[in-house]
């Protein structure tokens, strides 16, 4: 369990670096480090399906971000902020941490009670669908309707991107 927290700590450092650093390319690299840390976390939690998907999506988004930003020379603007804002931010973080602590201690232990529905799936997936990969059996057979919704979301987002970035029919 200790390596899980170690990687989580490195991911938080990477996220802060990605937010604070001025160079855009370095910021993207730090974001990639966060994604790779998430991949390792999924592997340690024994979710290889999620790890593979996270890895390839991370690589794809890194390529798109680098390709889209490397030729555009944007420098982060330095803006002077009111020093009182820092105090407000600290106050907000303190309140947030207190409430999240109150919420987290109420949670059951990690992965401890097997839910009724999940137990049914684990017991019957191999028998009912004869699929060896239980994740595929759940998302494509028991929960196929949800996956259809996800596919529709992806379809709509592709249409949106292509409509915004289209070549033909653009007003000069």
């Amino acid at each position: 369990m200790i390596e899980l927290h170690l990687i989580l700590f490195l991911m938080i450092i990477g996220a802060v670096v990605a937010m604070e650093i001025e160079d855009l390319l370095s910021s993207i690299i730090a974001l990639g480090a966060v994604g790779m840390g998430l991949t390792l976390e999924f592997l340690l939690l024994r979710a290889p399906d999620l790890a593979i998907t996270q890895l390839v999506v991370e690589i794809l988004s890194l390529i798109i971000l680098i390709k889209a930003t490397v030729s555009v020379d944007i420098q982060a603007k330095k803006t002077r902020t009111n020093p009182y804002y820092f105090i407000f931010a600290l106050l907000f973080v303190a309140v947030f941490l207190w409430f999240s602590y109150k919420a987290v201690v109420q949670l059951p232990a990690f992965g401890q009670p097997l839910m009724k529905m999940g137990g049914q799936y684990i017991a019957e997936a191999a028998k009912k669908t004869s699929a060896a990969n239980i994740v595929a059996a759940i998302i494509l057979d028991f929960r196929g309707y949800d996956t259809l919704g996800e596919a529709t979301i992806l379809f709509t987002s592709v249409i949106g991107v292509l409509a915004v970035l289209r070549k033909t029919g653009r007003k000069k």
Partner: protein
Amino acid sequence: MKAKEAGMSLIVKRITKITVSLIFLFGVYIVLHGHLTPGGGFAGGVIIALSFIHLVLAFGKEIALKKFSESAASLTESLGGLMFLGVGLLGLLGGYFFLNILPHGKTFDLFSSGIIVLCNIAIFLKVGAGLFSIFIAMAILKIPLEDNQENK
């Protein structure tokens, strides 16, 4: 700088010729074994989109778009979506939406578990073509930015 040539240097092009087919093959393996091993339609589709993106980055967009053009990408994506919906509607023959009516076969066989293989293939077509066309639109075209720089 030398005369501008599409794509990257000779070393990158040589190695791309070897690796791109291996990446494509690995994507096909991930899709077709989605019901046996980790992975599935989404991961395999992204891997195959990455193999085409590899071609775009190494050889420039003309050669890559000759192999898999933008209109072919949007056609493939729509076909994948329709195929997934069709597999779902196929279940109505047996009673309800997304019912697994195809023969299940034995566990650990390649041709087993009914509609899951078909769903994986449909999602693979959809995700691969969709993400490839997003990459083409975001990274290659860049219309508004170039217009702004010319107008200055």
